[in-house]
């Protein structure tokens, strides 16, 4: 009986030891719109829902990477070659090939790594040959990274580069805090860096950054999608000095998405010039087109006006600092009545929208309601109040999740305010339906007393 039990245990242990996770999909997938991640987490807990809802605002696409224990190495390796391709500079690729393949690999005979080094060399030659056609070079890269045998060689060479850097770095003592005391540097190399399928750790990223990316000025930005509270993912850059810098002042940046134990590749929205182009198209379809088109400079101005109004659209937080409520008045329609506006709104509103001065040149009929809105809005009291009272409406990310946990602003006090989804200024505007079964007298009573009060 007991031996049966032991045999069962042994069988279970063996099964656990030999367990191979069922891995789906390619090693490195295609560029995928990032809202797929949002949908993936739609039923997760609220922190994830909120963070993944905000994710597409910063990152338009992601590239899934297979989670076989090498994904961090795979993601950074892919990102490195992709960044090289984006430079479009074949001579840079050649120089990098020489640098990497001539880097001294420590503690291993050439026999161990020459096949791997050859694969790196072949890949970089193929990329250089395909440039300046970046699309063709990317095809080469994706194909190589999806060939398991080639990818194994490439990634293991990265592991050897990282471990050689650690062994050869005179300042290696700085890393000791990351290394379990009992195994030391050599043990860390053997049991962490050089073990295929062993996931990369913070130290591994530091080493790989130092040996692979730093010499060519590349930067890694990692977005951490985890349970820490906050409206959006936290990001951290390697090197640490790059944190807080304007991306335009940094070298090529590769963006990674970290979920516990897994890395994918992210792609941010293109630099802000691109959305302006889109707005030109959109403005041309306006009914006032005939007034705008004769004057090209005015058209430019008009696109700027419209750009700010974009933040009205949930999920397109181009200007998250400006509350969406106030922006909406800039493009309000003529029949707009300013009464429901909160008294603290106008100050930041006028300050933060320099386009106001340009409006009169644009279109007479559009500027009228806006100016009227300013002049009618109560002025004297709010001077003492802070210019911006922070509420969740200041954060478009939150405003988006607002619908799912929405309190009902249909009491007499709030019924006519923009907090009620029946108000057209509400980001989740939903017209009220006439339902005869409801008591009509309710509306008759509510209307006169629904006069706006401070809230």
């Amino acid at each position, binding site marked *: 009986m007991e031996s049966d039990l032991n045999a069962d245990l042994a069988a279970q242990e063996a099964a656990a030891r030999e367990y191979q996770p069922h891995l789906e999909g390619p090693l490195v997938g295609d560029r995928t719109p990032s809202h797929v991640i949002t949908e993936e987490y739609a039923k997760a807990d609220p922190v994830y829902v909120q963070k993944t809802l905000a994710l597409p605002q910063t990152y338009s696409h992601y590239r899934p990477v297979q989670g076989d224990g090498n994904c961090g190495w795979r993601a950074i390796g892919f990102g490195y070659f992709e960044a090289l391709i984006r430079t479009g500079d074949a001579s840079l690729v050649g120089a990098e090939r020489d640098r990497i393949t001539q880097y001294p690999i420590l503690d*291993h005979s050439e*026999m*161990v790594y020459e*096949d791997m080094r050859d*694969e790196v060399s072949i890949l970089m030659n193929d990329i250089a040959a395909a440039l300046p056609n970046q699309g063709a070079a990317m095809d080469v890269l994706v194909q190589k990274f999806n060939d398991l*045998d080639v990818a194994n060689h490439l990634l293991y060479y990265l592991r050897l580069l990282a471990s050689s850097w650690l062994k050869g770095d005179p300042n290696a003592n700085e890393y000791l805090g990351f290394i379990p005391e009992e195994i030391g540097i050599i043990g860390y190399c*053997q049991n962490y860096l050089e073990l295929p399928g062993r996931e990369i750790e913070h130290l591994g990223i530091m080493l790989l950054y130092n040996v692979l990316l730093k010499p060519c000025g590349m930067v890694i930005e990692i977005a951490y999608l985890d349970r820490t509270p906050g409206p959006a993912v936290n990001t951290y850059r390697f090197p640490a000095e790059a944190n807080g810098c304007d991306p335009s002042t940094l070298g090529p940046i590769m963006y990674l998405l970290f979920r516990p134990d897994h890395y994918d590749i992210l792609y941010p929205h293109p630099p802000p010039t691109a959305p302006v182009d889109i707005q030109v198209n959109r403005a041309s379809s306006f009914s006032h087109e005939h007034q705008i088109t004769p004057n090209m400079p005015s058209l430019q101005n008009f696109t700027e006006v419209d750009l700010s109004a974009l933040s009205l659209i949930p999920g397109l937080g181009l200007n998250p600092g400006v509350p969406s409520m106030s922006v909406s008045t800039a493009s309000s329609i003529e029949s707009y009545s300013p009464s429901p506006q909160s008294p603290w709104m106008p100050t930041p509103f006028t300050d933060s929208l320099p386009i106001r001065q340009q409006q009169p040149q644009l279109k007479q009929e559009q500027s009228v309601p806006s100016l009227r809105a300013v002049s009618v809005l109560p002025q004297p009291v709010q001077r003492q109040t802070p210019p911006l009272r922070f509420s969740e409406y200041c954060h478009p990310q939150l405003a988006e999740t607002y619908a799912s946990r929405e309190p009902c602003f249909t009491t007499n006090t709030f019924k006519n305010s923009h907090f009620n989804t029946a108000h057209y200024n509400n980001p989740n505007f939903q017209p009220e339906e006439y339902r005869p079964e409801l008591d009509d007298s309710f509306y008759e009573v509510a209307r006169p007393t629904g006069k706006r009060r401070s809230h």
Partner: protein
Amino acid sequence: MASQKRIQKELAECTKSPPQGMTIALASESNLHKWHVTLQGPPNSPYAGGTFGLVVSLPVEYPFKAPTVTFSTRIYHPNVTNDSQGSICLGALKAENWKPASKLLGVLEAVRGLLVEPMPDDPLEARIADEYKNDRKEFEKNAKAYVARYAKGAPKYEEPTAAGEAKS
């Protein structure tokens, strides 16, 4: 198959200076991934006088996945299954211990070492391990009986899948 250079060099290394008592050859000239090894029982062990066949299989993903080594000759040993499979329990070959930097020369030396000094605390055959620990004389008697019965003459490398391939 990007590891051809590596495998060729390992094969050259093993054939040039093989571990004591071993000769190494490819099962078939066209396939670098299957080796046939003959192993003379170490003189200071109960296996002395026997000639054992070993089959080394390199997976397609070698060196990123561990090779497998099996006895094609029956052997009475705590760490080798007592059947026609001849599976070996060797720490270095376990998936979690294998590193691409590990070499086949070292693996073969470890197999030979296992015959000199079995590891009864990590057995595949618990009964033989018990006997080895508690009744060494009986163990040696049985091991020698197996040698006399199975390990005399040129080893055969019979495999269920590639029976016609065996030529050494």
